[in-house]
């Protein structure tokens, strides 16, 4: 039998149903790939027993005729989703050893649909980062390398374990979360696909909180169809999340179509930023040609407040983070650092100094400052006003187009260590992904081609609220035309 790790989610599901192989055989193949890929450091915790139990149950269900949507499919789970009985760290020492007694809604739905879990995937600490270098459990190393050298590259972030594991074929698909680009940018860096749905589509219950008005779970996989399959099982109303949307989950997979006839695809002129590398511009043009070839009409649109999106994000996200992360106090769960003779206040301060990494502290401090007395209106209220303008820009653009097409990131993957000395240059990586996050819109990245150095480049599609179908369809249209078949040469 050919290597089952070459199969994506749809192929695994369908092959298993057709009786080509057992779920156990598939699980064993991926478990072996996970073990063989430890040099990439994509996993914080491996859970082969979980994958095997789900596979054995799937094999039993198949003989009993009780198949579920994801029977036979093992997945990777970003270590930001609480998993009952399995350590959940958010890649921080603060939560090392934390074993949730409850299951996040998203993982509960996935496991209820028959999926198994291969392990908990590494990420930037508390999902704060764009390169996976803020993890307390070490860098994830991208399976991709530039042609002709062995420099270790970033898999993107914060869902860097997810993107690396998919690209290295250690998992057929994975969960991600996206606050300012944490699904789309890692997908772009690794030649994989990922979709952040409309804010509120997936329940946030049981996902370690970063910035609650922005955090949204989504799916990551090798192709658009697999993303649709996975997202369909992750999404849905949940009374445990006050911002969960009470709307039905469409049958995204069944309705997938790469035909864009009658669609108007908008090209936002403000995304043509100064100093954009020629190959990113060429990639964008290729994407425009693909969309036109698929039948779409191309229209130029304007999103006047694009340039203000990043500074707005870096007020709102740290503000919400400083509030959300106040819960880590060394009392109820997680780390406690109690210096000799220390009182309660000293214990809080020592615990948080020891538990949080440098980037997390930086963001908590910025957030604390912008929310502090005398500065709240100047920073936070102002940012929420600009955010309203950014959302209005999109509403107006969608009066003349149905979808937006942009590059996902301003460059191909950079080397580990290349950008982490300067927080600002790292933040600028999210220039194209943050605006859609601020507006709560569905957005996805699909591979569009390779850089001159042989690294993947991603194209981003942004849709109207709740139009995941339109986003996925346009993603499929690009995927069908890009013919992206490149894979990293195995060195690990």
């Amino acid at each position: 039998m050919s290597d089952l790790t070459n199969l994506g989610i749809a192929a695994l599901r369908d092959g298993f149903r057709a009786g080509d192989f057992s779920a156990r055989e598939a699980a064993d193949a991926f478990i072996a790939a996970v073990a063989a890929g430890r040099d990439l450091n994509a996993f914080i915790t491996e859970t082969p027993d979980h994958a095997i139990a789900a596979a054995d149950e799937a094999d039993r269900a198949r003989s009993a005729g009780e198949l579920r949507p994801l029977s036979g499919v093992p997945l990777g789970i970003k270590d930001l989703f609480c998993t009952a009985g399995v350590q959940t760290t958010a890649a921080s020492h603060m939560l090392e050893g934390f074993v949730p007694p409850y299951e996040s809604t998203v993982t509960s739905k996935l496991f209820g649909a028959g999926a198994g879990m291969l392990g908990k995937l590494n990420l930037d600490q508390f999902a704060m980062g764009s390169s996976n270098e803020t993890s307390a459990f070490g860098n994830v190393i991208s399976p991709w390398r530039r042609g002709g050298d062995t420099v270790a590259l970033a898999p993107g972030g914060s869902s860097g374990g997810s993107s690396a594991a998919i690209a290295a074929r250690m998992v057929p698909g994975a969960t991600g979360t996206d606050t300012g680009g944490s699904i789309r940018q890692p997908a772009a860096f690794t030649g994989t696909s990922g979709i952040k749905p409309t804010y509120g589509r997936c329940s946030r219950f049981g996902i370690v909180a970063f910035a609650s008005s922005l955090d949204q779970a989504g799916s990551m996989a090798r192709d658009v169809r697999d993303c649709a399959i996975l997202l369909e099982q992750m999404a849905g109303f949940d009374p445990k999340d006050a911002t969960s949307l009470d709307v039905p989950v469409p049958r995204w997979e069944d309705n997938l179509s790469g035909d864009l006839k009658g669609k108007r695809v908008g090209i936002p002129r403000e995304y043509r930023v100064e100093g954009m590398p020629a190959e990113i511009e060429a990639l964008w043009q290729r994407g425009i040609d693909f969309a036109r070839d698929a039948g779409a009409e191309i229209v130029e649109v304007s999103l006047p407040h694009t340039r203000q999106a990043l500074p707005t994000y870096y007020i709102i996200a740290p503000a919400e983070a400083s509030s959300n992360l106040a819960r880590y106090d060394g009392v109820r769960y997680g780390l406690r650092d109690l210096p000799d003779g220390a009182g309660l206040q000293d214990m809080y301060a020592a615990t948080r100094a020891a538990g949080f990494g440098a980037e997390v502290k930086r963001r908590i401090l910025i957030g604390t400052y912008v929310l502090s007395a005398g500065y709240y209106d100047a920073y936070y209220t102002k940012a929420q006003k600009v955010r309203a303008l950014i959302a209005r820009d999109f509403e107006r653009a969608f009066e003349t187009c149905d979808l937006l097409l942009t590059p996902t990131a301003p460059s191909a993957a950079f080397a580990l260590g290349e950008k982490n000395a300067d927080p600002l240059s790292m933040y600028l990586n999210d220039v194209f992904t943050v605006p859609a996050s601020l507006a709560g819109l569905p957005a996805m990245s699909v591979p569009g081609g390779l850089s001159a150095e042989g690294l993947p480049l991603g194209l981003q599609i942004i849709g109207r609220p709740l139009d995941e179908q339109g986003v996925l369809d346009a993603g499929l249209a690009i995927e069908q035309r890009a013919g992206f078949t490149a894979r990293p040469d195995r060195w690990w």
Partner: protein
Amino acid sequence: MSVDLPTVRKIASLARIAVTDAEAAAIVPELNNILGWVEQLSAVDTDGIAPMTAVIPNSLRLRDDVVTDGNRRDDVLKNAPQAEHGFFAVPKVIE
């Protein structure tokens, strides 16, 4: 607006994060760099614009006022760094 050393110390204290003198000194230029950059928002005309409160319009729901969970003391305490007699334990706060 920019921050100085005493301000960083105050923020760190509000955030309950212990910082050494060297750390606080290193944080000052980092925060100023970021704050200087976000300062550009002050140039945006936001007169008459209401601050965003919900990114996707959504009405808050009410549910029946009934108990839906509970009696899980041991679960709740399971991850506590220190639990005694069915309670979270902390250093003495009242002399």
